[in-house]
C-alpha cells in the first residue's frame, strides 16, 4: 500500500484521512480517474460539454479602463461567463461524467453559498443523475435563490442543522451520507480539498482555465504574464489557473479572505486566511493548513464572500506555499468591496465577491512592483449572487 501512498500527497500534505468504509471507494475512484483521465473518448465527451454546455473557452479580456486606473496591464480570465456564473461547473461536469462512466446512480455534494451546489445541479440534470446537496441551514436561508435554482433543476437540497450550520457542517454531513451510501453514490467535492484523489482530480478538471490562458495570452502578448492572481477558498479556481503555469516563470498569488480582521478567538476566526495564518492539521480527509485553536478544534471562519469562507484549503496550495512557489496573501472585506465597485464602474463587469478579493490584491500590490507589467486575474464568478450582500453594505 505504500506505493499508492506516495501519489496521494503533495509533500507532506494531502492523503486520505477518512473512515475505513470510504477507503475502497476512494481507491475505486482513483482507479477510474486514472483510467479515464487521458482517455480519448472520455475527454472528447467532456470537451463537448465544456464547449457547448458550459460555454468554454471563457475569454481573456484586457481590462483597458481598469489597467489605466490601477497602472498595470490587467487581463481578466472570464470565468464569470461560464454557465451557472462561476468556474465551479468545470469540475462538476468532469466529475459528473466520471460518475456516469462509473455507473453511479446518485450524486451528493456539499455547498456553502450554493455555487457548487448549483453547478452540481446543472451537471446532474445534464447527465440525468439524481442529485442531492447538503447545505448549512443558515446558508439555505441566506442564499434562498440558489436553493431555488437547485430545486428547479431537480436537485434535492438538504438543510444541515448541526454545528455552525454552514459549509464545514455541510461537508461533514455529506461525508456521513457518503459513508452510508458509498456503493451507489458519488460524492462530488466542490474544490481541491478532501481526501485523495479529489485535490488532484478537481485541479485537473479546473486546469482547463489555465490551459486556455496559456494559449490566449500567447496570442495576445506573445509571452506569458508576469503574474497570476486568484482568490482562494478551497483553492480550485486558483489551482485551475495556476497549475499549467507552475513550471513556468510566472509569479502566482493566492488571495485569501482577510474578513473583518485578522484575529481569532478560541472558537472563531474573523477571516478565512488559512494559507496565511493556518497551522498544519487534518480536516475533511486531508492534511493541510487549517484554522484551528491550540487543541486542534476547527474554528468557524468568516468572510463577506461565502465561497471563501472555509477553515481549510487545498493541500497542493499548502505545499506550493511551503516551497515558495506561490505567495499566500489576503484582502479584507472592505478592500474586496472597493475592488468590486471598481470593476463594475470601470469595466461593466460585476464580479463575484470571491473574485473581488483577487482584484483588490492587484489594486494594493501594484505599488510594490511585485506583479510585474502584465497580470492575469481570475474572475472566478459573477457577482449577481452577491447583490443583496453588497446592497446591505450601502449606507
Amino acid at each position, binding site marked *: 500500500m505504500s506505493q499508492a501512498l506516495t501519489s496521494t500527497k503533495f509533500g507532506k500534505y494531502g492523503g486520505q484521512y477518512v473512515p*475505513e468504509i470510504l477507503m475502497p471507494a476512494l481507491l475505486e475512484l482513483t482507479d477510474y480517474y486514472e483510467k479515464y483521465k487521458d482517455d480519448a473518448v472520455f475527454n472528447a465527451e467532456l470537451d463537448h460539454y465544456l464547449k457547448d454546455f458550459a460555454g468554454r473557452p471563457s475569454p481573456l479580456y484586457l481590462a483597458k479602463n481598469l489597467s489605466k486606473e490601477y497602472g498595470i496591464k490587467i487581463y481578466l480570465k472570464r470565468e464569470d461567463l461560464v454557465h451557472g456564473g462561476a468556474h465551479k461547473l468545470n469540475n462538476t461536469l468532469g466529475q459528473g461524467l466520471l460518475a456516469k462512466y462509473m455507473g453511479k446512480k446518485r450524486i451528493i455534494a456539499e455547498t456553502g453559498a450554493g455555487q457548487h451546489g448549483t453547478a452540481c445541479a446543472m451537471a446532474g440534470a445534464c447527465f440525468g443523475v439524481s442529485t442531492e446537496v447538503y447545505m448549512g441551514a443558515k446558508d439555505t436561508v441566506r442564499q434562498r435563490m440558489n436553493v431555488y435554482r437547485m430545486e428547479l433543476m431537480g436537485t434535492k437540497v438538504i438543510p444541515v442543522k*448541526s454545528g455552525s450550520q454552514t459549509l464545514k457542517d455541510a461537508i461533514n454531513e455529506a461525508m456521513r451520507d457518503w459513508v452510508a451510501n458509498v*456503493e451507489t453514490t458519488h460524492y462530488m467535492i466542490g474544490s481541491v480539498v478532501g481526501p485523495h484523489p479529489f485535490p488532484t482530480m478537481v485541479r485537473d478538471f479546473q486546469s482547463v482555465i489555465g490551459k486556455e490562458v496559456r494559449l490566449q495570452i500567447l496570442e495576445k502578448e506573445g509571452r506569458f504574464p508576469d503574474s497570476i492572481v486568484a482568490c482562494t477558498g478551497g483553492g480550485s479556481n486558483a489551482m485551475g489557473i495556476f497549475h499549467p503555469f507552475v513550471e513556468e516563470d510566472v509569479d502566482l498569488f493566492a488571495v485569501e479572505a482577510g474578513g473583518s480582521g485578522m484575529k481569532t478567538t478560541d472558537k472563531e476566526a474573523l477571516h478565512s486566511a488559512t494559507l496565511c495564518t493556518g*497551522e*498544519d492539521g487534518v480536516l475533511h480527509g486531508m492534511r493541510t493548513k487549517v484554522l484551528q485553536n491550540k487543541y486542534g*478544534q476547527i474554528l468557524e471562519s468568516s468572510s463577506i464572500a461565502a465561497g471563501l469562507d472555509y477553515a481549510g484549503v487545498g493541500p497542493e496550495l499548502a505545499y506550493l506555499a511551503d516551497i515558495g512557489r506561490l505567495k499566500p496573501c489576503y484582502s479584507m472585506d472592505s478592500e474586496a468591496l472597493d475592488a468590486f465597485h471598481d470593476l463594475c464602474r470601470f469595466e461593466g463587469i460585476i464580479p463575484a465577491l470571491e473574485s473581488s478579493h483577487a482584484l483588490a490584491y492587484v489594486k494594493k500590490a501594484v505599488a510594490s512592483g511585485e506583479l510585474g507589467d502584465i497580470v492575469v486575474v481570475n474572475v472566478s464568478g459573477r457577482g449577481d449572487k452577491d447583490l443583496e450582500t453588497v446592497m446591505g453594505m450601502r449606507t
Partner: protein
Amino acid sequence: MRIAEKFKQLKAKNEGALIAYICAGDPTPEGTKEYVTALVRGGVDIIELGLPFSDPVADGPTIQAGIQRALDGGMTPDLYFRTVSSLKLHIPLIVMTYYNLIFKRGLEKFVKDCAASGISGIIVPDLPPEESGDLLQICRKNEVDLIYLVAPTTTETRMEHILAEGAGFIYLVARLGVTGARSDVATSTGELIKRVKTATPKAVGFGISTGDQAAQIIHAGADGVIVGSAFVNIIGSGQDVPERLEALAREIKKGVISN
C-alpha cells in the same frame, strides 16, 4: 489493564465483551466520572471514552449532540487526560477521537499522555491504515493498542493488512453509515464477522442498542459488542442518567453472556 488481558479473562468465562462508548465531558467533566462508574456497575467490560472533536464526520446525530454538549461544557484534551487519570478503573479504557486532535497535540505526546493516564487503546475513525504508520510505531513503543476498523466495504487485500497491524481488538463496523442506535442487525454484519479471520478479538459496533442484538452478534462469532449511541441517548435525556446507564449496560451484558 491491557485490552488483550480483558478478552482473555472473558474468553475463559465464555463471555462476550461489552464495550461502552460515552463522550468525556458530556454534559460536564464531573458527570463523566459518575457515568463511567455507573457503566462499570452495570457490567461493562471496556470503556471507550470519546475525546470530543469539533467535526466528527463518522458520528451520527446522537453522538454529535453528545460531543457538542461536551465541547460546550468545556472539555479539552488537557482536561480529558486529567479526568481520565482520576478515574482509577480496573477495566481497560480506550480513547476514541479524531486524528486532528492527536496530530495537533503531537503524536508522541498524545500517546505518552494516554499511557500515563491509564489508557490502553486508541480508536481514530478517520485514520485508515494508509495514514497511520507514524502513530502505530509510537503506540507500539508505548504499549498502547492502536485499534483498527474494518467495514463491509473493506477489500480482501486491505483486510489482510489491517488484521496484520491491528492490536487490542478489531473494530468491525456493522453497517455502512455513521454511529447511531438501530433496532435490527444488518445481514452484512454476520458476513463481515465471518470474513474477519484473525486471532485478535473482534468487536462489532455501529447500531447496537439492545441485549437481543448483542446476543445475535456474539452468536455470529464476535468476541464483543460496542454500544455508544444508546448510552449517549440516555445522557442526552438528562433523566435518571446513572440508573438508566447501569440498567442498559446490565441488559446488554446479559445478551453477551447468554451464549
